[in-house]
């Protein structure tokens, strides 16, 4: 079952329109909420006049900061760090000051959304506009407006790190190369926006919240604390989630507090569903860094040392700490032997929505910088970029390889396995690189500009702390699996089922997987950092192994044979070489629960046939009823996946348009549970990488007004822009976990900007164009061509 390309368990339901997304949850009598959001990027808040809104028929509640009292605390700092000296988090509703366009100022609950929106329009807020800063570099410079009055120079953090002796290496260098590189702001933008529905039952005291999150358990425990409720009376459900890409790992978004609060206050269910404008201005975003990098290189193109200083734009708050720039700093070296490395970043506040991880989470930035350095070296020494990579790769016999820096999870950045040289050759061969230069020269003779680009990366995946799972066989023979993290399209209903099916020798279609429901499983963290299959997958594997052992033990007692003579085949335990002498998992599940009553004929038969006269208690001491088990998995540290992408493009120098002729992906995520699902993850990631390189850019004007607040302005690629993505797999199993797997969720998105920068530069080399920024619109490519001439 592991490694099988089976269709997904979850598809028939989703294809029939029977998915259950948060906005599909409609408790009886549900009310609808809308948010009043700041139209200013920075302003002092004066009076809020809401009497007309409150008087509007159908309005149930208008909430401002003053109404929330102590609950209106700044949100939790999720991931503190010693160098994050000036953390600032957002309150559910702005108090005294707003710091970005879209910040929540008031919250209205009404009989329907239309009336709630009418009421929002009736609220009059007295704003006193304050000076705005949107550029991260300017934010750090003297005299810049302050986003937070008590954060000097808008500097949230400064984090210098060093490996080896870069100064010495720079003194030895044959070449020192420098570059300034910029990557713009972007966002995840799942097609389902965020949403929250809550209901509170005063009879049971249970607060139940449906939210489109990637981390329902932390939300459950946080809400319990905020509202002074026992954890067992708070239930949080992330049902079907329509894409996450990191945007939904942020917690708490203001609405995740406001909706439950309003529910308890009003004694009625409340729903808030984000609209697209709200998403594009007020859901967290990412990318956005400025790098000044210098490389010390020997005469053969080997990198002796790297120094990088970068500015990370965190927007108005740091709810997710400095995880994104830490990942950039630690993952920037990629697959290369870098023994001397100095990296320092500064985190700047600006009057824009906050930054937290978006698919790739700091890695696309790092890969862009590192791969641009490879391009610089190639240019300087007149080498093929592929050859520079070959000369600098960590070799297959050098694992485990320690980058020497502390990773985002507090563990080492220690690569566990991989084969980077083989990966590059696989990708180049598949892309037909050997004949490309001739083809390129021929095209140039015809006035066409073809280019090839590649990008390699290493991705730390499967971070801790841990995940857990419950696996239970029911008397019907169906297997039920629950785990604490969530699914937003990754196909966990199938891949997790395959892991169970492998161990219990049943069909994957006989396994039902539930994720993201704290009622079903109470322990774990969430879906982020390409960790779901590594952490929950191995926890499920551990639980399934215990279930298997118990099934064999029970069968051995009932059939009176040694466990060594038993085998599990087709959902049943049978005696080797004795046809017909067997018990189904369902029958064993029935027997494993020694209740007084048998339901149905099969159970009654099983009870009569199998239960023997006994002397003592039905459960021995320490024994649990049921054919079930709990399992947990806590990784020792991240497992590092890797890959190499190669693109062949044609650039039209007249229009600046880039056409992707080929896009080849070599990928290594260790053992694949379902290659079809893996390929789907990669294809979707690559589309986001291409989007981030050529189309998607969040734009703010100098007053801090977001100019990309619709899908007419924020251009996500369509089927017309994304080419066929050709994938070749390399499997180097991880030695860190029993299944040998590494994460794959984010991988596809990482090298896109790096690959396309190299490809476009290669295509336009006769025109002398250098690529130092991402993304690149056709207009910008035209400008770069003009500037080069």
């Amino acid at each position, binding site marked *: 079952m592991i490694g099988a390309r089976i269709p997904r368990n979850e598809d028939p339901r989703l294809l029939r329109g029977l998915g259950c997304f948060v906005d599909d949850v409609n408790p009886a009598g549900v009310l609808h909420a809308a948010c009043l959001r700041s139209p200013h990027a920075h302003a002092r808040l004066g009076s809020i006049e809401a009497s007309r809104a409150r008087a509007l028929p159908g309005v149930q509640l208008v909430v401002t900061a003053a109404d929330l009292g102590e609950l209106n605390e700044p949100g939790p700092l999720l991931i503190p760090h010693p160098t994050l000296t000036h953390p600032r988090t957002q309150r559910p509703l702005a108090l005294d000051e707003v710091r970005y366009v879209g910040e929540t100022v008031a919250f209205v609950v009404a009989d329907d959304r239309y009336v709630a929106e009418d009421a929002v329009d009736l609220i009059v807020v007295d704003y006193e506009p304050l000076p705005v800063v949107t550029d991260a570099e300017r934010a750090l410079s003297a005299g810049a407006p302050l986003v937070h009055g008590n954060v000097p120079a808008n500097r949230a953090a400064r984090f210098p790190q060093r490996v080896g002796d870069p100064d010495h290496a720079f003194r030895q260098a044959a070449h020192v190369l420098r570059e300034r590189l910029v990557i713009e702001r972007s966002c995840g933008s799942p*097609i389902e926006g965020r949403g929250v529905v809550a209901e509170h039952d005063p009879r049971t005291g249970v607060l139940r919240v449906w939210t489109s999150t990637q981390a329902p358990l932390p939300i459950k425990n946080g809400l319990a604390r905020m509202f002074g409720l026992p954890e067992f009376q708070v239930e949080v459900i992330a049902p079907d989630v*329509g894409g996450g890409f990191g945007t939904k790992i942020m917690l708490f978004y203001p609405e995740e507090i406001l909706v439950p609060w309003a529910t308890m206050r009003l004694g009625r269910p409340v729903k808030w569903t984000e609209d697209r404008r709200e998403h594009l201005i007020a859901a967290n975003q990412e990318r956005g860094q400025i790098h000044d990098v210098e490389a010390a290189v020997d005469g053969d193109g080997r990198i002796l040392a790297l120094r990088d200083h970068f500015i990370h734009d965190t927007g108005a708050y740091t709810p997710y700490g400095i995880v994104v720039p830490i990942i950039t700093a630690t993952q920037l070296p990629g697959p290369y032997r870098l023994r001397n490395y100095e990296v320092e970043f500064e985190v700047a506040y600006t009057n824009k929505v906050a930054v937290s991880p978006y698919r790739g989470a700091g890695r696309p930035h790092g890969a862009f910088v590192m791969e641009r350095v490879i391009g610089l070296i190639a240019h300087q020494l007149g080498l093929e970029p592929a050859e520079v990579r070959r000369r600098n790769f960590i070799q297959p016999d050098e694992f485990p390889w320690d980058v020497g820096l502390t990773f985002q999870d507090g563990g080492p950045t220690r690569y566990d396995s991989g084969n980077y040289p083989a990966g590059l050759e696989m990708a180049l061969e598949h892309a037909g690189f050997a004949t490309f230069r001739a083809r390129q020269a021929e095209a140039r003779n015809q006035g066409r500009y073809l280019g090839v680009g590649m990008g390699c990366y290493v991705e730390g995946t499967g971070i801790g702390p841990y995940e857990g799972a419950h696996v239970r066989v029911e008397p019907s023979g169906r297997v039920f699996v629950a785990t604490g993290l969530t699914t937003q399209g990754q196909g966990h209903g199938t891949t997790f089922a395959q892991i169970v099916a492998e161990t219990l020798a049943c069909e994957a279609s006989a396994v039902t997987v539930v994720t993201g429901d704290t009622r079903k499983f109470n322990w774990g963290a969430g879906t982020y950092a390409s960790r779901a299959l590594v952490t929950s997958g191995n926890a499920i594997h551990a639980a399934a192994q215990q279930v298997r052992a118990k099934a064999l033990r029970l069968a051995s007692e009932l059939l009176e044979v040694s466990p060594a003579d038993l085998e599990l085949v087709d959902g049943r335990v049978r005696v080797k070489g004795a046809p017909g002498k067997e018990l189904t998992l369902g029958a064993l599940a029935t027997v494993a629960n020694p209740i007084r009553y048998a339901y149905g004929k099969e159970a009654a038969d099983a009870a009569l046939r199998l239960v023997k006269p006994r002397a003592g208690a039905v459960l021995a001491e320490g024994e649990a009823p049921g054919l079930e088990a709990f399992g947990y998995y806590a990784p020792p540290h991240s497992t590092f996946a890797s890959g190499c992408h190669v693109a062949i493009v044609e650039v039209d120098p007249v229009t600046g348009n880039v056409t992707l002729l080929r896009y080849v992906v070599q990928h290594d995520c260790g053992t694949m549970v379902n290659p079809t699902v893996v390929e789907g993850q990669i294809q979707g990631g*690559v589309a986001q990488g291409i989007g981030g390189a050529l189309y998607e850019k969040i734009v703010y004007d100098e007053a801090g007004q977001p100019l990309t607040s*619709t*899908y007419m302005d924020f251009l996500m690629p369509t089927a017309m822009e994304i080419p066929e993505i050709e994938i070749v797999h390399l499997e180097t199993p991880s030695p860190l976990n029993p299944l040998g797997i590494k994460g794959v969720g984010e991988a596809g998105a990482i090298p896109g900007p790096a690959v396309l920068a190299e490809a476009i530069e290669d295509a336009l080399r006769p025109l002398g164009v250098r690529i130092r920024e991402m993304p690149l619109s056709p207009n910008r490519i035209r400008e770069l061509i003009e500037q080069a001439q």
Partner: protein
Amino acid sequence: MSPTPALVSVRLRVNGREYTAEVPPRLLLSDFLRYRLGLTGTHVGCEHGVCGARTIQLDGAPVRSCLMLAVQADRAALTTVEGLAPGPDRLHPVQEAFRLEHGLQCGFCTPGILMTVTAFLHEHPSPSEAEIRRELAGHLCRCTGYQNIVRAVRRASLLLAADPGRATAGAGRDPVSSP
């Protein structure tokens, strides 16, 4: 502003079943389908007609239900994703093709795409890849990179060609007779 606009009576057929309702004139058709009729399979992605998630069929043609008011659908016959499959145990060939080709991940944009594709294949039974991609350009999918959706459409065209009797989905295609 009038907080309680006068209600308007609408009568329409959805997936073969007839409904009459009193609705505010400003009620979006998509909200009517989702909240009044409980047909939550039609999803809302952007409310401004770009993402295509809210696509349904109106008298057999794909339309954006977020750009229409419920009152505009008076006397129309609609098909939503819930009306595609011929029965609880069988999928429509287009749905089947999406499953076989892993043409969906989170499944949020999928219903809208299915409604476009079923109408498209009705008009273009054996489309080229370029035609398929052009047709899909009216939909945004953030999960798949489109490749498997393109494959699913091609496969659906083959499944339909092999079994043309299954092409017509739901019972909602025939217009409601005038009252």
